[in-house]
């Protein structure tokens, strides 16, 4: 066995250029497989992280048709009393012009309550959050995100400063922490906006689009209650309220986003992996082709070996191992090149906060697939060699 292995290495190194060209098919196939799948899984984990930052157990409800039975603040308070529900926050948003002294910027203004921040995993940096009394008294106060504090007011510790939103004066009562979500991906998804959070009731007065009939609200599941359970409960309540019309409202949860994302990337992985797999098979055919040439070229050698006592098995083993070794060397080179490539991509995209690590599972798949290809495409030429009759092979070139 060790002898056959040595012989195979000798034969491969004896014809370096040809061996390399033969391996090229395998190398490219392995690289395609490993790199594509690793890139997809790298992107997936990055996107999944971002989704998680949106709020871990978030359920969003939006109402399209209230059948004359609109949701009011009292309804949300009722929801709060249910044990499955942790927090409820109405939400309305609109774009307004924010002004501080002479600076003027476009601000996304959210009308909500104090629970919103908990639901969205937003942390306070300085000041205080919205209170129920703010809601009840329609006070003109706002909590702002750090982007607004920096870009409109000019400094983050701007509590008690006054800004105007569409001409109405607001006092800043709190500034939110710059969550990790300020990563570039969330920036791409709109995380870099100037945001102000005001009581829902105040938003109603400020914006003509917002009324006391709540059109959208966020719910978070109570501790230790699966998001799925809460989502189903809300779904049932909403169906009862709106004449069992599924189209009257829309419920979304981050679970669904994750599931959808997972599905998409699984399909992508299989699709791209499949295409790369085809190129591996093509590489394998290349190996078979060269092994057939090798067998013909070495007919005389096979004859000599058989004459001095090599059994069929010994010849079969020799050529099969040669094909497998050829495949595995190609595979190793391919994996090494993929690794280098992924390191390079990681360095280049380091600023994007993406990491492309080699996917361990795909490496195992690539190695076993290469081995399988070596066996499958090596078997026919090796068997052809083993079947040669010693006298015919000995007199081949004569």
């Amino acid at each position, binding site marked *: 066995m060790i*002898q056959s292995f040595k012989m195979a290495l*000798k*034969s491969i190194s*004896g014809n370096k250029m040809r061996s390399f060209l033969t391996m090229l098919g395998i190398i490219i196939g392995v690289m395609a497989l490993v790199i594509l799948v690793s890139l997809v899984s790298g992107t997936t984990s990055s996107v999944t992280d971002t989704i998680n930052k949106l709020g871990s157990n978030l359920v969003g409800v939006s109402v399209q048709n209230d059948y004359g039975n609109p949701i009011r603040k009292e309804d949300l308070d009722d929801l709060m009393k249910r044990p499955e529900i942790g927090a409820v926050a109405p939400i309305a948003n609109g774009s307004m012009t924010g002004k501080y002294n002479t600076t003027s910027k476009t601000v996304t203004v959210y009308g909500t309550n104090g629970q919103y921040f908990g639901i969205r995993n937003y942390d306070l940096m300085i000041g205080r959050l919205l209170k129920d009394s703010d809601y009840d008294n329609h006070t003109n106060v706002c909590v702002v995100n750090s982007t607004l504090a920096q870009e409109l007011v000019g400094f983050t510790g701007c509590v008690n400063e006054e800004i105007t939103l569409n001409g109405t004066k607001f006092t800043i009562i709190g500034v939110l922490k710059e969550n990790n979500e300020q990563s570039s991906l969330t920036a791409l998804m709109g995380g870099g906006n100037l945001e102000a959070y005001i009581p829902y009731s105040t938003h109603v007065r400020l914006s003509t689009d917002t009324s006391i009939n709540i059109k959208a609200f966020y719910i978070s599941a109570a501790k230790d209650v699966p998001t799925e359970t809460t989502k189903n409960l809300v779904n049932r309540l909403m169906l009862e309220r709106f004449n069992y019309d599924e189209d009257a409202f829309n419920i979304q949860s981050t679970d669904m986003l994750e599931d959808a994302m997972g599905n998409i990337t699984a399909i992508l992985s299989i699709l791209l992996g499949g295409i790369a797999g085809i190129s591996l098979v093509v590489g394998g055919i290349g190996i078979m082709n060269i092994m057939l040439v090798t067998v013909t070229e070495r007919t*005389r*050698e096979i*004859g*000599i*070996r*058989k*004459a*001095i*006592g*090599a*059994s*069929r*098995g*010994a010849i079969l083993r020799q050529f099969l191992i040669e094909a497998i070794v050829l495949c595995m060397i190609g595979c190793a080179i391919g994996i090494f090149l993929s690794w280098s490539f992924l390191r390079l991509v990681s360095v280049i995209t380091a600023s994007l906060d993406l990491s492309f690590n080699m996917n361990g599972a795909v490496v195992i798949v690539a190695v076993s697939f290469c081995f399988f290809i070596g066996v499958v495409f090596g078997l026919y030429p090796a068997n052809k060699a083993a079947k040669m009759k*010693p*006298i015919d092979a*000995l007199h081949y070139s*004569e």
Partner: protein
Amino acid sequence: MITMKDICKTYRIGTEVVHALDHATLEVYDGEFVSIIGPSGSGKSTLMNIIGCLDIADEGEYLLDGIPIEDYSENELATVRNKKIGFVFQSFNLINKLTAAENVELPLIYQKLKKSERKARVKAALEKVDLLKRAEHFPTELSGGQQQRVAIARAIATHPSLILADEPTGNLDSKTSKEIMDIFHDLNRQGNTIVLITHDRNVAMQAKRAINILDGRVTEATDDSII
């Protein structure tokens, strides 16, 4: 050592049937040096292939060391060739990618001998043909005579019962031919059985016994009747 009885071998070339061997009967005893002489086309290659277990006769009985060969499978024949027969070919038939020592070692690898045992045998065999100094050379770096000596070393490394030489001097000049023949004489003196196939009368006469082969028929030859 070799007992052949009524061996027949026919080839079919197109519609024509060629009787390469026609009821050949032959006896070679332990320790003999026998030459088989015949012109080309006389069937001597076929005879050599059958003696060397490279081919199987259509009819007749062949005992090598008392073992009937006819019923053997291909793999069993490989084992017989490996253990009992040492081949020396006209065209040397060394593997060019392997060094002299590796060529000599090859049949021992197929015998699955231990590495230390193989090394010792390779050394002894190369010493016998006086080529120890060239052990690490490749066949292409050796002269014809040296290559044939490597081939002889390969043949004797397995301690075979029979050394089968097919025109061993056919590709060599007369001086190197003599050297090679001297090695065969030495080997015979040390007790090796040698069957030498040739078309060269001078070479054949050096053997203790000569056998004629003509049109597939084998006859015992006296000095005068050597063709």
